[in-house]
């Protein structure tokens, strides 16, 4: 098994499992009460120290870190928390990058149905937020946004946003900024103290699933998403997932800059071999490797379809990801690939790789070799080729739509 889908989720480190174990089997009390028995107090000590570790990774105060059940909850809490806390204000505009994660975009859709206004920021062909568009919106005197949400590292195309720059544009006009740092946490330095809220998660850094955190700048007013107790500085009720939180902190501790050197080296190696062995592909996201998540490589391969590539590789025990419509539950092209202006007929060939410290160069060599022959095989049976695409482009230019447009809505998948 060669697992190359490490931006979807990662294997939990043995050291992380070891760190969690006492909290599964021994220190099992909730850490809530100060005046309880010593298991409860030991639990609280563990919780506090996990909070310190996580906070120091993004340069914020531990007391401003709220543990959550993960990215989805953190993003929903951030976006809806701000919106609902300002429900009665005249301003009701929420702004996000159009390549934001679905947990951000779907939260906005819900809010839009409830009367909030939403603007999605344009991005360039590499996925970076259009600075002029952002400036135009945050500087608007009659419709000041309640929040701007921007991803730090993009899961699909690896784009690493310059958060300092975005934050300073927002703050120039006193607009708070939320940063979705799920995919960049521990992989790229982030000074979250320059942001108003930052989402981070455990399961992409060899920590357990089901746990994440939200940094909330002291004083920022949010409506709680989950009521029910004094836990998490009164901002999130419920028995703390202490094994998960301890595992999260351990994973963060273990994910040192050294790890990034390893994955970056692997990624760059892959990129080079790819260029040598795979004809006709196009990198998605930034070409400048330093402006990408260090472990991230993504392409579209011409004339072939992602699901077919993925399953051929799978049978050979290599696991990657694709943004191909045919591989998605909704059978829709990835919104990120669409937002960077990639036509759907091209995005079908999407392939993305997330490497981890557990991968080796040999694995990557094997992977590219396999991929090369799969692509050759699929192309051999495909009617599509350069000539086909030229004709297709001409037809599109002339506005001629081919008869067999099997585009259809899957109503049962819609709201």
């Amino acid at each position, binding site marked *: 098994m060669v697992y190359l889908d490490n931006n979807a989720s990662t294997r939990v480190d043995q050291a992380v499992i070891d760190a969690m174990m006492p909290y599964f089997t021994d220190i099992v009390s909730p850490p809530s009460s100060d005046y309880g028995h010593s298991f409860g107090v030991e639990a609280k000590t563990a919780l506090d120290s996990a909070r310190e570790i996580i906070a120091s990774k993004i340069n914020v105060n531990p007391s401003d870190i709220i543990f959550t059940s993960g990215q989805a909850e953190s993003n929903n809490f951030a976006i809806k928390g701000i919106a609902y806390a300002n429900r009665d204000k005249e301003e009701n505009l929420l702004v996000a990058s159009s390549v934001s994660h679905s947990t951000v975009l779907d939260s906005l859709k819900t809010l839009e149905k409830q009367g909030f206004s939403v603007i999605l920021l344009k991005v360039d062909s590499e996925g970076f937020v259009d600075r002029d568009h952002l400036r135009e919106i945050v500087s608007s005197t009659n419709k000041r946004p309640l929040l701007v949400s921007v991803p730090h590292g993009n899961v699909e195309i690896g784009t690493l946003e310059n958060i300092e720059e975005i934050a300073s544009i927002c703050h120039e006009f006193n607009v708070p900024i939320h940063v979705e740092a799920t995919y960049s946490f521990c992989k790229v330095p982030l000074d979250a103290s320059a942001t108003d809220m930052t989402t981070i998660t455990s399961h992409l850094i060899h920590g357990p699933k089901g746990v994440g955190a939200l940094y909330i700048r002291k004083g920022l007013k949010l409506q709680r998403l989950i009521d029910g107790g004094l836990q998490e500085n009164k901002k999130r009720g419920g028995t703390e997932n202490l094994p998960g939180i301890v595992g999260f902190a351990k994973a963060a501790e273990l994910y040192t800059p050294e790890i990034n050197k390893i994955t970056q080296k692997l990624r760059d190696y892959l990129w080079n071999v790819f260029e040598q062995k795979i004809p006709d592909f196009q990198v998605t996201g930034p070409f400048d490797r330093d402006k990408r998540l260090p472990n991230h490589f993504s392409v579209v391969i011409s004339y072939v379809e992602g*699901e077919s590539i993925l399953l051929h590789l799978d049978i050979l025990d290599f696991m990657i990801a694709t943004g191909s419509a045919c*591989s998605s539950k909704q059978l829709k092209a990835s919104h990120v690939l669409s937002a960077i202006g990639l036509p759907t*007929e091209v995005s*079908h060939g999407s392939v993305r790789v997330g490497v981890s410290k557990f991968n080796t160069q040999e694995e990557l060599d094997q992977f590219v070799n396999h991929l090369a022959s799969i692509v050759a095989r699929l192309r051999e*049976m495909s*009617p*599509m080729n350069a000539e086909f695409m030229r004709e297709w482009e001409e037809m599109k230019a002339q506005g001629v739509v081919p008869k*067999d*447009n*099997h585009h259809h809505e899957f109503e049962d998948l819609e709201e």
Partner: protein
Amino acid sequence: MAHIYSKEVMDLFMNPKNMGEIENPSGLGKVGNPVCGDVMWIYLQVNEETDIIEDIKVKTFGCVAAIATSSKTTEMAKGKTVTEAYKITKKQVADDLGGLPKQKMHCSNLAVDALQRAIINYLEKTGRSVEEID
């Protein structure tokens, strides 16, 4: 190896049948749209005496289901008369494949569509229309 697809689908995906082209085919059917992610071209070589499909080839761009249904449809058509082949339904193809995921059922339409179009093309070339066999 766990997959959502049936064994039959996976087998045909791994070892597709009748892939390729026929030069100067008796009939050609092109369907699909690169935007949707499935394009299929079916080539027929028909014996004009007997109307029997003696050879059939397909070029497919698409997902696992598209490749499997292309293979299955061409296998089912081969050796049949165009009249018989024209009657192959999408459901028959899917059933013969041990079923398809609900959302992928649409993909199986394509190969049958391409086949029918190739048969129509053949009929037209031989001065007939589909009504005559339908």
